[in-house]
């Protein structure tokens, strides 16, 4: 930890390609193993992270590459916190962590996440930026305004060790 008040933090960024999920999750696994000294804790965090990143690539970005995924890893006392941030399609609700029928091929990701971490939550942060453009010679009544809307989705995973 860098100081008594500030948690250790490492940020990783990748584009939204399935092949990058392994790179991110292996890096996070190494950080969690180093910090916790627990193979089980690191594996649990890796499992939860992979399911969360799968959801981002598949659902938030619809398997479209070249969108940004940021992952922030924090160590606070005996707690690991990982934030997974995307700017894709937001979820309007968090799916219940229940197992589907045995023959269903999908729907196990949130069950795995729920089982592998102590707590998790999902935030959507909206922001509106208004941009005013003035060109040389423009008069005030010619000011054009543009509204840019952006948002971030943040899934936070917390694991104590």
């Amino acid at each position, binding site marked *: 930890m860098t100081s008594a008040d500030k948690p250790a933090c490492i940020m990783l960024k990748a584009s939204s390609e*399935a*092949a990058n*999920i*392994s790179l991110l*999750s292996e890096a996070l696994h190494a950080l969690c193993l180093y910090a916790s000294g627990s193979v089980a804790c690191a*594996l649990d965090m*890796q*499992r939860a992270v*992979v*399911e969360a990143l*799968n959801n981002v*690539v*598949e659902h938030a970005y619809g398997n479209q590459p070249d969108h940004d995924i940021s992952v922030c890893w924090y160590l606070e006392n005996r707690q690991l916190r990982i934030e997974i941030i995307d700017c894709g399609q937001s979820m309007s609700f968090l799916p219940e962590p229940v*197992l589907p029928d*045995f*023959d*269903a*091929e*999908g729907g*196990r*990701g949130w*069950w*795995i996440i729920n*089982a592998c971490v102590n707590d998790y939550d999902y935030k959507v942060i909206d922001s509106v930026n208004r941009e005013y453009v003035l060109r040389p010679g423009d008069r005030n009544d010619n000011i054009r305004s543009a509204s840019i809307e952006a948002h971030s989705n943040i899934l936070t995973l917390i694991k104590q060790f």
Partner: protein
Amino acid sequence: MLINEQKHDNIDIVVLSGRFVMADSPEVRERLKVLIDEGQGKLVVDMSQVSFIDSSACAVLISAFKGMQLKPGRLLLVTSPVVQSLIELTRLHTIFEILPNLPAALDALSTS
């Protein structure tokens, strides 16, 4: 991940090694489908060298299991501890036939 196909008498064997995750799922799904469609209803998926597995990989195994049920045939899995623990976490060990190693799986299919 590495995918290695083998044949033992009339038994098809797929040996997977490395990480079995979403990026690998389409290829594994297709390879298993071909073996199920063209094989003789006896298939072993050996994951004893798989170091990590996710829910996408579970979906591929369920798809293969259902395909083999329709054939009809028998699909056996050989797991590593990491694979086994996720299969148990998702309760899939209640439907999959899991053997401790490849010789045991081949023996089970040879006598069936």
